[in-house]
């Protein structure tokens, strides 16, 4: 199949088949991350514009690294230095960037729907790297990839999401992805942060329930997604850290309520001692560092697909476009079929 979307703005409109395709496309790029030489020439001569209108460190670096490992050049726009501070509109800013002829725009913005708005006005692919409280598609994909690596599947899992659900774009992208594979969701957090409407945001038939007692919310969980208590972003209303820790902090004792090998995911950056204890964050069930590594693979796959528009049956993006003939050991390790290290 070929990816039918020009842009990646949200996971909600994607079918299970399309989502699985994106995850499969990320596989070869996962392998690359373990190579001593990580740079490909797949997108040599291409330019990726990174426009982060909202502060971001890890997502920006991750997309930048993904572009660089594909051989693409990047241009960077950062909110503080940009002309937006001088009163330029978002549309003028991105049209100016576009006039410098990048092949793809990766953007983050504090307004929900900002990527959608920009995509309607540009003729190049737009990747949403997080828009307000709407979606964070690449995060949803890297979370699913991480779960699939660890558990061998993403179907029919019990997924518990903890924290400020109302303002979480990560939660929405996870629900829209995993929900299409039959996962059931338990949303847990202070009631003001988990409004009833969230039970209906999934596709028809997706089971989403709210539970306000953490111990109950963790029962039978296969996956626990801990959301960050975003101190810089307004939680409305805010509650005290003490209250939050008392009610919703994931600690080792509470984690025992979940299934024995339940995974703990966190989109980062973590506030240790707030939403999660160090013991859990560093424990064997934690996937936080794999998530980061998989983030680059997922983003390489997205950039590759959207910029080259390559079909599934086309040449292997990894082995076919090496900058130079790779050493023997590298070729083996980048073979698509070599998944032996998939879950290390």
């Amino acid at each position: 199949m070929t990816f039918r979307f020009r842009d990646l703005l949200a996971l909600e409109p994607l079918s299970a088949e399309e989502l699985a395709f994106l995850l499969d496309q990320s596989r070869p790029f996962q392998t690359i991350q373990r190579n001593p030489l990580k740079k490909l020439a797949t997108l040599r001569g291409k330019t990726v514009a990174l426009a982060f209108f909202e502060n971001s460190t890890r997502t920006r670096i991750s997309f930048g690294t993904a572009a660089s490992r594909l051989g693409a050049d990047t241009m960077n726009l950062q909110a503080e230095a940009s002309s937006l501070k001088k009163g330029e509109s978002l549309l003028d800013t991105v049209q100016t960037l576009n006039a410098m002829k990048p092949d793809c725009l990766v953007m983050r913005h504090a307004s929900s729907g900002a990527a959608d708005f920009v995509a309607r006005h540009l003729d190049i692919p737009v990747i949403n790297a997080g828009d307000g409280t709407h979606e964070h598609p690449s995060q949803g994909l890297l979370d699913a990839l991480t779960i699939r690596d660890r558990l061998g599947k993403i179907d029919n899992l019990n997924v518990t999401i903890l924290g400020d659900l109302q303002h979480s774009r990560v939660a929405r992208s996870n629900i829209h992805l995993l929900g299409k594979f039959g996962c059931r969701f338990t949303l847990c957090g202070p009631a003001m942060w988990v409004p009833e409407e969230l039970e209906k945001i999934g596709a028809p038939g997706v089971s989403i329930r709210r539970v306000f007692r953490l111990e109950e919310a963790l029962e039978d969980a296969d996956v626990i997604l801990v959301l960050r208590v975003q101190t810089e972003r307004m939680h409305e209303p805010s509650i005290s850290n003490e209250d939050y820790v008392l009610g919703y902090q994931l600690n080792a004792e509470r984690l025992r309520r979940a299934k024995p090998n339940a995974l703990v995911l966190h989109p980062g950056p973590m506030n240790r001692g707030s939403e999660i204890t160090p013991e859990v964050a560093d424990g064997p069930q934690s996937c936080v560092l794999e998530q980061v590594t998989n983030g680059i693979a997922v983003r390489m796959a997205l950039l590759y697909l959207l910029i080259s528009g390559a079909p599934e049956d086309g040449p292997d993006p990894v082995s076919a476009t090496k900058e130079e003939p790779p050493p023997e050991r590298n070729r083996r390790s980048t073979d698509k079929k070599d998944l032996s290290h998939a879950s290390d």
Partner: protein
Amino acid sequence: MLLIKNGRVLDPASKTDAAEDILLDGEKIVELAAPGKLTSDHKNAEVFDAAGLIVAPGFIDLHAHLREPGQESSETIETGTRSAARGGFTAVCCMPNTKPVNDNASVTRFILDRAKTAAGVRVWPIGAASVGSKGEAIAEIAAMKEAGIVAVSDDGKPIATAKLTRQVMEYCRSLDLPVIEHSEDVSLAAGAVMREGVTSSRLGLRGMPAAAESVCVARDVQLTELTGARLHVAHLSAKASLEQVRWAKQRGLPVTCEATPHHFTLIDEDVQYDSRYKMNPPLAAREDREALITGLADGSVDAIATDHAPHEPALKDVEFDKAPFGILGFETALALALEQLVHSGRLSLMRMVELFTTGPARILGIERKIAPHEPADLTIFSTTHEWTYKVNQSPSKSRNSPFDARTFKGAPIATIVAGRILYKM
């Protein structure tokens, strides 16, 4: 002289629904009679053949923003009234949230002078309730009344406090002016860009609950009971607010309300990050829309008003949450009312005409009828003419309509103000 012949006259005031000829002379209606039966001399009259068309009293829009003075890049009194004439409106009430705010007689007089120069449809200014609509001190309401305002409102926001609302109501009662309220609890609505619900949760857009409106309606209904003032609830959107209005009406309180075409046509589920769907109050839930249509049919809603709110493209073509609230309304109002209310079988044509004519007139304390000696203001429209709305062809300076490219059945054919045909399709 102007003879309008062969039309089907629909006059809610006299409950007339008959084929009649109407003779206008100067600014007044002279006579109406069965076709061919006029007794007055009309040999030299210009003839308008209204065969197959409806002839109604002139439509009144209780709620519009003409943006002048101060925001002429979005609309002027001239462009706004031309757009209104295309929509079949013979009179528009313009809200005071201009720059400067219409909170004193000199601004009121400026607006009326500009309207006279524009020589378009009648412009009936609404004065601010408070100075600068800031909710602190009462505006110069008596002086503005002398200059020509027909009501007061701090539209764009509610009158800030219950105490000030009470005082404005008491004062307006003594001046015999209606108080038009933009009902919104600003703390419940703070930061919101659409109605709260599944769609706002899906889109990650901050929503305001229906209660943001109904809490304020409840407050004002109670204050109406306290003061006896005439309260008119602007652009009512929520079922719960309508229930408050019904309760007030049952108690015999002088409370009225209006509904906009967009609120009885669209719902929150139609919002897709397209700022042409952003207005305040926001598009409501499916059941709210249903309640509005029921209220329009059963008399709980007194008038259809457009809330015509032009914003130039540069202001509207931004991120959804940064775009200003408001959409164009004049030119699609009648067609949407026909589509949603009449062709759908929910309202009779007579009831719809009432909502555009005698309904708003009563709120302003005036009459609206087709009879000798009455002003020669008439709206002639078709219920069958098929057309496509093209916002690029609008005389309005703005383009913010979600109904661009929509195809309609039924349209204004001619707008007659003071005996002059201001618009003819």
